[in-house]
């Protein structure tokens, strides 16, 4: 069996603790950046972009966990994103469930959907899973489009409320119709999910997943329950997509099925690959770059997706480790140490 990952995974490279700042330091730095971002960007246009960016980060790290860490070729991430968005919205509007309960239920439901697909497809090799997940995404999109009594089909659902205000005693209440607060909420959760996955991949679970990804037969000969762990990884990754969907719906305020067509899966895939599959920080960079760069290049018109396609192809051809690999190479060149140059890429 040809392995999915024989292209070399940066995840396998031994990651040195970062120099003089340390991991904790980086986390504080990121929190400060999140805190400052809405103050620097006062206009709603850029704040909107920042929120979309945070949502995309959630999607990208979730997909990377499935794809880069568990080695499962998932082309249906848009489906879990859509399930999360529609589930939370319908729970709120049709059943009157409070937002945060709906949020948790949406995450659960997306996770269960992911696990169900994974259980279903666990016997399948890479390409079969790719097509199965693609088919799953088509089915979900078509159901959203055709179950008109529930989803209003192509007409969409409008005027979805933002998350309810949080009123802490003694403090002014926090309204999420304010874009700055919404950004703090979504970015905060994206950061939280990142930390969660970071813990996971550093734990023995991460090593188990790597073992399965690299050689399933050997892994199972060590007594690892490969099927079980694959389902687990799929569940976690798609649950994060569910969270992203719930935030998307409550932020944008309208839902149409076409927001979750299979092309969306490819867009998320592009973020993961361009950033660097199999590392957690890579997809974050990929999501930021591919969300913000097109906005910067807006004057070139509809080039956005042309750019995505070109980036995806070129990265796969010339730098399969993505931006992470590029940074490693640059770093190595700065230090002029040839040993470090091979650290990021294993051809």
């Amino acid at each position, binding site marked *: *069996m*040809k*392995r*999915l*990952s*024989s*292209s070399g995974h940066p995840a396998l490279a031994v990651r040195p603790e970062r120099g003089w700042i340390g991991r904790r330091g980086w986390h504080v730095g990121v929190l400060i950046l999140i805190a400052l971002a809405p103050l620097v960007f006062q206009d709603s246009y850029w704040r909107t972009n920042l929120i979309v960016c945070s949502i995309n980060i959630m999607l990208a790290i979730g997909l990377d966990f499935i794809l880069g860490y568990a080695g499962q*070729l998932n082309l249906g991430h848009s489906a879990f994103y859509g399930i999360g968005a529609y589930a939370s919205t319908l729970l709120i509007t049709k059943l009157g469930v409070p937002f945060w309960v709906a949020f948790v239920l949406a995450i659960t439901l997306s996770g269960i959907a992911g696990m169900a697909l994974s259980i*279903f*497809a666990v*016997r*399948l090799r*890479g*390409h*079969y899973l*790719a*097509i*199965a997940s*693609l*088919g*799953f995404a*088509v*089915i979900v999109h*078509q*159901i959203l*489009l*055709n179950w008109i009594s529930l989803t209003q089909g192509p007409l969409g659902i409008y005027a979805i409320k933002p998350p309810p205000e949080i009123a802490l005693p003694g403090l002014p209440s926090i309204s999420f119709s304010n874009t700055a607060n919404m950004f703090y909420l979504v970015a905060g959760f994206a950061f939280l999910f990142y930390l969660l996955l970071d813990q996971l991949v550093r734990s023995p679970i991460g090593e188990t997943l790597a073992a399965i990804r690299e050689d399933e*037969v050997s892994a199972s000969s060590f007594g690892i329950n490969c099927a079980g762990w694959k389902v687990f990884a799929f569940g976690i990754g798609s649950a994060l997509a569910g969270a992203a969907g719930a935030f998307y719906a409550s932020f944008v305020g309208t839902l149409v099925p076409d927001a979750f067509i*299979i*092309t969306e899966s*490819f867009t998320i*895939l*592009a973020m993961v*690959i361009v950033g660097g599959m199999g590392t957690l920080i890579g997809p974050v960079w990929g999501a930021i770059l591919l969300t913000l760069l097109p906005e910067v290049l807006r004057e070139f*018109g*509809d*080039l*956005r*997706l*042309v750019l*995505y*396609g*070109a*980036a*995806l*192809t*070129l*990265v*796969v*051809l010339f730098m*399969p480790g993505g931006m992470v690999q590029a940074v490693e190479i640059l770093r190595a060149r700065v230090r002029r140490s040839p040993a470090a140059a091979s650290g990021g890429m294993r*051809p």
Partner: protein
Amino acid sequence: MVTVALQQTINGVVFGSLYVLVALGLTLIYGVLVQINFAHADVVTIGAFAAYFFTFAFGGNYLISIGVALMVGAALGWLVNAAIFAPLRERGSELLPLIATIGVSILLQNAMLLWFGPIPYAFDSPYSNEVIRLWGGTFITWQNVIIVVVSALTIVLLYAFMRFTITGKALRAVAQDRETAGLMGINPDHLIMLTFVLASALAGMSGAMLGPILVLTPFAGTTVIVKAFAIVIIGGFGNVEGTIIAGLAVGLIESYTTQLINPGLTDIVVFTLLLLMLALRPTGLIAEKREETV
């Protein structure tokens, strides 16, 4: 009732035979290379646009435009292999070529969108309005006759080529075991190139025939390719006979679903079938006696 059933059967066979053409390309490439080519969709679309511009901008004959689309498809196939699959082959990854061709597909679709615009093109084949009346009120347009006849001829020719020529034999040898075939003096690189050219030529010509019966936009190929993937899996990856049966079956199922249940549900039915197939019989309709290497 019988009339309706008959009419839907005709429509099903028409679409089914085009699906077969597209899916055969995918399955040929998979058979030889064990790789999925997402850019196949855009070869279909570009084939359709090539035929459109040949007939309308240059006033060419529609039947000749099918040949033009075939040539354009073949050229694109050569390009996709030379630019994407050949450089990535030595890395031996299942994932990278797939992702790279997704990239190519996004690139081509959106470049076409910029170029041709989002408004569907009215590709009126001169044969679309001429109807042959059949028994009991059913009818078939000349366009559909052309589709079925050309597809059937192509499939028979391809089959004969694979069965009876030395090159076809070599192709099958490479599909079975690339390394051993190499030892027997077959140059796998040439045959892989040939496979891409053949497969994409099929996609191009099916585009030319799909154009008039489908909504011609830059995304036309995608709707077809997603079904072609389902067909390839239902038929068994790399299995030519299975692909032909599955393609016709999917065409018919679609057609009956449209009539009996709801046109919106066709994709759901087809893909539920795909998932069921994967769960129950992942080797496809016709189980292949190929050994799995672990």
